[in-house]
């Protein structure tokens, strides 16, 4: 199909591109091991002398772990509740006939076109007036709300494709709707649960704007807020900042490589199924 000549240039191009993707990651990780002087004269090479202090001082820093833990809480809480609430709602749309179901479904769908930025100021006021500022719910509730629409669409599409014989049989046997949901629907939905989980986990883990608006108490900082404060403190002490960057980079990359199939399927499949 491709002549050798052609494929030679194609591979040259692909490796060059891979290099462009990789080099920024490599210089960051290597940079965390350098002294500032080394970084200045030798930003591309390996460290002349490997300094581990930037990394170890972070790893024994309670704040670093606190920020990480907070982000775990935000991501886990959001993902769990989006899966539960969206799948329950989608179950109703997929299996129950009732007046206004079409209208309600479209009401949720409308949410897909709502940009988050438009809502932030009123959202801040709502959270403040509900007395939730300074609690984890200030981040979790808005994240759930903005995650629902897409998750409902994905779940509804999946539930509708489940064989209706199953539903009829269970119903004849006296199974109620809620029993059916817990006994059959949820256990049979692991692929779509994985998709919704990936979208919300990655979204919450990386979210910056919402915690930036909602959180002003350092004890509740997510790691993106923490790293930005850290950056503000050390300004041009790049080795320190790069060490922090790398410490967040490495788990993300490992997580991605380990669960790559689910993540790619979740993020692209999620987009394509819309």
């Amino acid at each position: 199909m491709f002549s050798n000549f052609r494929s030679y240039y194609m591979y040259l191009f692909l490796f060059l591109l891979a290099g462009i993707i990789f080099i920024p990651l490599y210089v960051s990780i290597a940079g965390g091991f350098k002294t500032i002087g080394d970084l200045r004269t030798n930003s591309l090479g390996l460290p002349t002398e490997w300094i581990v202090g930037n990394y170890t001082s972070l790893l024994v820093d309670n704040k670093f772990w606190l920020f990480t833990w907070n982000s775990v809480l935000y991501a886990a809480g959001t993902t769990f509740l989006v899966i539960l609430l969206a799948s329950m709602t989608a179950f109703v749309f997929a299996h129950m006939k009732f007046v206004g179901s079409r209208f309600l479904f479209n009401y949720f769908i409308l949410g897909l076109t709502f940009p988050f930025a438009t809502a932030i100021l009123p959202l801040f006021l709502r959270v403040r007036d509900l007395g939730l500022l300074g609690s984890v719910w200030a981040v979790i509730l808005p994240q759930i709300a903005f995650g629902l629409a897409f998750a409902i669409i994905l779940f509804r599409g999946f539930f509708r494709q489940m064989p209706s014989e199953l539903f009829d049989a269970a119903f004849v046997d006296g199974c109620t709707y809620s029993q059916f949901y817990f006994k059959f629907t949820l256990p049979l939905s692991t692929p779509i649960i994985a998709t919704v989980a990936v979208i919300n986990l990655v979204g919450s883990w990386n979210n910056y704007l919402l915690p930036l608006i909602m959180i002003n108490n350092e004890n509740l900082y997510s790691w993106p807020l923490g790293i930005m404060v850290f950056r503000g403190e050390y300004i041009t002490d790049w080795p320190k900042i790069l060490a922090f960057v790398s410490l967040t980079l490495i788990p993300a990359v490992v997580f991605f490589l380990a669960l790559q199939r689910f993540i790619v399927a979740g993020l692209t499949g999620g987009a394509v199924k819309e």
Partner: protein
Amino acid sequence: MNSAKYNALLSKYSTLVIFIIPALTIFTLFVVLPIVEAAYYSFYRWDGYGDPNKYVGLKNYKYLFKNKTFILSLKNNFYIIAISLFIQLPFALLVALMISDKIRGANFFRTVFFLPYILAEIVTGLIWAYIYDGNYGMVAAIWNFFGADPPHMIAEKETAMIALYIVIFWKYFGIHMMIYIAGLQNISKEVLEAAKVDGAGPVTTAWRIKIPIILPTIRLSVFLSILGALQLFDIIMPLTGGGPSNQTHSMVTYLYYFGVMRMKFGFGSAIGVVIFLICFTIAITYQRTLMRKD
């Protein structure tokens, strides 16, 4: 109605209500109402305490469209869209066409090219802020190597936007490539075999068969790219923070600096409403016209 039937119906409707109310409440309180409230607040001058009572009509909007920084941020958003559509997406498509076939190393390249997409925007921005740093960064090292004075790319008006485009390209072309690959892999083998039998080369096959077939996928990625670009925020913050001298704001960073930071709830809401109207108009026209058949 007998009681068994009545009970079944009761059970159905109570399940319905219990299943739908939590999502409906959260969605209404934290998505729909805030959007409506933003529209309302945008007609007021308000610091967020007490009730909004200083009605100013369209003043916030008038000020906004006379403000040079906001107009520039609007333009920046549209430049980013243009560059995404005319450079980034075609490039992603080209790469997808190269590695959607089972060539050696296809999986490796897919993984590498997709990798930046899963990194946090904040981290991406910090990495590149370092790379562009005129004293310590990689760009500086390359210039020094050639004996030239290194530029401070994100600190200079002329180059800051270019620096931002490069980062956006680096981070986001992978997701579009993956979306295209997903589409390309759905093309039936028979169609491609038939093309091969008819003597179509790889370029003809791509141009005449593959691209037309995945057109719905391409339209979707264009749509996602536009809406994503209009809401750009996270990546700008660690990179330029809208600077130098407010040259690299997007509408959302403008909203953050001039609405949120200054506690101007009315003015900030007006910015939000403009963003909403642009996104909503694009989404509706796009779905009514281009994506109708999909």
